[in-house]
């Protein structure tokens, strides 16, 4: 998994790329959570993510929860088809 962070004023757009599984979930977590912790509004672009499993969904849930605690925004701005499918399945559960 690779990532790129765009800075627009206080907003941070995080672009993740590749496959997000248990092996790289910590890397994704350590990329996103500090930005939210610092009070930034984080927009996550997953349009280049080819695969995501429950570990990746966990990172999204943790990010959302932290943003609520920090009174900031965490949003998905674009998702790939494989990610949309996993999110749809996860929504039945969450």
């Amino acid at each position, binding site marked *: 998994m690779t990532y790129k962070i765009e800075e627009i004023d206080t907003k941070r757009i995080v672009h993740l790329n590749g496959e997000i599984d*248990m092996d790289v979930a910590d890397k994704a977590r350590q990329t996103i959570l500090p930005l939210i912790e610092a009070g930034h509004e984080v927009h996550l672009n997953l349009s280049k993510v080819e695969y995501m*499993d429950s570990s990746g969904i966990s990172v999204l849930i943790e990010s959302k929860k932290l943003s609520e605690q920090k009174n900031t925004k965490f949003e998905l701005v674009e998702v790939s088809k494989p990610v949309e*499918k*996993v999110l749809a*399945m996860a929504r039945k559960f969450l």
Partner: protein
Amino acid sequence: MSELAHTNHTEKKDFLVRSSSLKDVRSFCREVFEKLHIDQSLKDELVLAIAEAAQNIVKHAYKDSPDTEDKMVVQISCKENKLQIGFYDMGTPVDPGKVKHREIDNVKPGGLGTFFIQQIMDAVEFKDGKKPWINHLVLTKQL
């Protein structure tokens, strides 16, 4: 799904029990499902279910042995339109009664992988592992 998916076929491969092996598990499954001509949508779901089951071995059966040199085996069989995926490992014995997804009103991510497996597959069965194996999980799906 093509009629070629009805072909009887079995393949197995072993993997080090590490999170870094999960990518290889997915690649192996994709290769086998390509040979079986399983359509892309179902293939994606099956790969997810298998990867989640393999992840559970790394995360739970080997929770206390992150640097193990043990291997897990993934076996994919297709016979008479029935896909059967077997997982073998030598980790901590799994208590099937404790393997369940969490309650729906408890908003935590844990258990989501098990939920995915149950959503995608027709049956999830824990069998007694025959030596040298400790755990033997079988996932089945009617094609």
